[in-house]
């Protein structure tokens, strides 16, 4: 077990165990840009060249950011099969946004998209023409976004708002 993170920063905990010969890494706490490197080192420390399968148990991970996604992708490149089990809501959402649900074998599976809520700004209609994610996979994106009330729209920020200055 490893505690990762300094006081005030995101704190994560990594526990490794074997389950039917498969390495299971239980990651809990928070994983963000401030402790991602340490988490990565801790994960690398329990991986060996023989590790072919790896399960990340993430139900206790209360927050993860793009650096956590980068870590998962990086590990998935090294280990033949990586599975993500029981991701928390925010982790599931990140995996959905980046189009990595299949690559990371997320379980339980099922719809990872947001549920349709009456009046919710996310329509349950998905755009068939997907946008490309930076991860090389297609990401479903809302067919339409609810327009903002025009009266409250931020003024278009123009170049004049910031005069160039060379005396910095």
């Amino acid at each position: 077990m490893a505690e990762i993170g300094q006081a005030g920063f995101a704190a994560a905990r990594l526990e490794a165990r074997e389950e039917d010969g498969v390495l299971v890494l239980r990651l809990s706490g928070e994983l963000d840009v401030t402790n991602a490197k340490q988490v990565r080192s801790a994960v690398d420390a329990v991986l060996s060249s023989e590790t072919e399968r790896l399960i990340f148990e993430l139900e206790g991970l209360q927050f993860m950011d793009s650096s956590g996604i980068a870590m998962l992708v990086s590990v998935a490149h090294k280990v033949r099969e990586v599975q993500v089990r029981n991701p928390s809501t925010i982790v599931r959402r990140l995996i959905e946004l980046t189009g990595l649900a299949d690559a990371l074998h997320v379980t339980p599976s099922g719809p990872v998209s947001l549920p349709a809520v009456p009046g919710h700004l996310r329509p349950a209609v998905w755009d068939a023409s997907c946008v490309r994610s930076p991860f090389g996979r297609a990401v479903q994106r809302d067919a339409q976004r609810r327009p903002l009330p025009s009266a409250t729209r931020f003024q278009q920020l123009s170049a004049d708002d910031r005069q160039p200055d060379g005396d910095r």
Partner: protein
Amino acid sequence: MTSDEPTAQPGWQTQDEASAPSVLDQCFDASSLSALRTATQACAAQARMPAERATDVVIALHELAANAVRHGAGSGRLRIWDHIGALYCRVDDDGPAFTLSKGHRDAGTDGAGSAGQNLADRWPREPGHGLWLARQVADQMTLRSDSRGTIAVITFAMPAIPS
């Protein structure tokens, strides 16, 4: 930036911003990103943002703040306004302009990084890039950067209130 209040730039403040008091105004650095997320979550909940959408707000604002910490000045300021059907969020940092690498420039449709363009419109699609994520979940995002710092403005529309 030489003024005492580097982020107070009248030219960047709209009438709406000026008239509505911010519901959150918090400075951050690497040691307080976690606290910033907690405050953001509370702010979205207070504004009666649905839980799923509040998750998106936290994801996006964390990525903008983390970007300021990692690639900008190392610290910054987040302000949120709850105003007529939307949450307006603004992240300022006094770091230098974003430097677009070759890959970044190639990702732009128009190439040149001339002033006045919205960087968010042509932000690179790069693995793990937090700004890409922020832009995915926001209803609107504007990113401005020059030698004096960076201002990101991101907007989340509120769901209609059932009558």
